[in-house]
C-alpha cells in the first residue's frame, strides 16, 4: 500500500478490540469477518476486504473506510457510526430509551439507570430496536456521547 494509507492494525490489536466488543457488548467477532482493520493515530478504521484493494494500493489516499473506534483514556470508544452499523448485533450493555429520554440526553441531562454493567460505554437504542449511538455509564447514570452535530438530527426526529 502507498504510504498515505493508514497502517494495518496488528493481529493482537485487532483481536483485543474484537474481544472487547464481544465481552462488553456481546457482538461476535464473526461480524467482522471480511473487514480489514487499519490504525491511524489513536483511531481504528474498518474497510471491507476485497481483492480490488490491491488495484488501489498505488493511490494516494485521504480517507479509507469508516472510523470505528478511538482510544479515550483507558477505554476503546466505538464511534456513533460504528454503533449505528453494528450495534443492533449487541446483546449486552445495551439500553433501550424512549424518545423523551433521548431528548433529555441530547439536552445534556444524564439518565438514571439500574443497568448491571461495569463503568464504561453502553449502546443506546430506541424502542424500535435501532442502535443510535453510545452513552457512558458510571455510578447508575448514563451520559450522552452522541456527537453534537447529530443532536439537531435527533431533535428533528
Amino acid at each position: 500500500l502507498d504510504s498515505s494509507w493508514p497502517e494495518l492494525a496488528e493481529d493482537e490489536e485487532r483481536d483485543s478490540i474484537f474481544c472487547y466488543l464481544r465481552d462488553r457488548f456481546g457482538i461476535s467477532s464473526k461480524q467482522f469477518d471480511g473487514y480489514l482493520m487499519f490504525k491511524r493515530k489513536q483511531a481504528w478504521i474498518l474497510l471491507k476486504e476485497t481483492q480490488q484493494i490491491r488495484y488501489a494500493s498505488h493511490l494516494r489516499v485521504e480517507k479509507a473506510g469508516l472510523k470505528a473506534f478511538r482510544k479515550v483514556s483507558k477505554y476503546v470508544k466505538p464511534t456513533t457510526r460504528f454503533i449505528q452499523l453494528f450495534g443492533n448485533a449487541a446483546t449486552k450493555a445495551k439500553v433501550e430509551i424512549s424518545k423523551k429520554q433521548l431528548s433529555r440526553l441530547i439536552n445534556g441531562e444524564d439518565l438514571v439507570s439500574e443497568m448491571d454493567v461495569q463503568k464504561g460505554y453502553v449502546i443506546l437504542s430506541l424502542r424500535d430496536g435501532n442502535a443510535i449511538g453510545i452513552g457512558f455509564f458510571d455510578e447508575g447514570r448514563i451520559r450522552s456521547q452522541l456527537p453534537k452535530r447529530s443532536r439537531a438530527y435527533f431533535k428533528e426526529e
Partner: protein
Amino acid sequence: MVLSPAKGSFVLDMCAAPGGKTAHLAQLMDNTGLIIANELFQDRHLSLGNTLDRLGVVNTVVTAYQAQQFPLKEPFDFILADVPCSGEGTLRGSALKRLAYSKTVPLKPFSALQKKIILRGFDLLKKGGEMLYSTCTYNPDENEEVVDFLLKNRQAELLPINLHIDFEPGITQWRDKKYDPRLVRSARFYPHQLNSVGFFMARIGRR
C-alpha cells in the same frame, strides 16, 4: 438507476463531494467491492467523509487527484463522472445562485475541463465497463458537445437510458453546431416535467 454497479465491482466516482451519489453507489453494491471517491478540493473532504460515515459506507476510500489526471494504472468496472458545471439546472431553487450566475457565466472553462475529464474517465474504463457522464446544467456546450468530443476521439458507444420518469433525448444540433446522431441516446431532465433540478446524463460503454 442508470449506472447500476454490480456487487463486488471496482468503481470510480471522479468528482465525489458531497458524497450522496457515492453513498448511493455503495448502497447499490451492498457495501461490497471498492469505490474510489475522488475529490480534488480538500475543503470538500469533510462533507464527503461525513456523508459516507453517516450513511454507513465501508467500501470506499477517498482520494484527491485532479479528475482529468487520475492515475491510469488500473481500469474500473464502473465510473461516475458527475463533473463540475455551470449548474444552470439548480438555478430554479436559489435567487442568490441566479444572481451569481448572471454576473459570472464562466462557461468556456467548464467545457474544456469537462472534455479532459470525460476522456480520462473513458481511458480508465475496463473493456465492457460503463461510465455515466452527468451535469446539472442545460448548456449543450457542457453536455452534448462534451460527449460528442468523446465520440470523435475514442471508440466509445452510447448506451440507452431506461428510466420510468419523463425525460427528453439529447440534442444533435445547437446553433451552428451539429453533434453525433447517437446523442439522442443521452437524456435531458427538465424541472417543468419532473418538478426537480435540471440534469443531463449520457451512459457510455467501452467495447
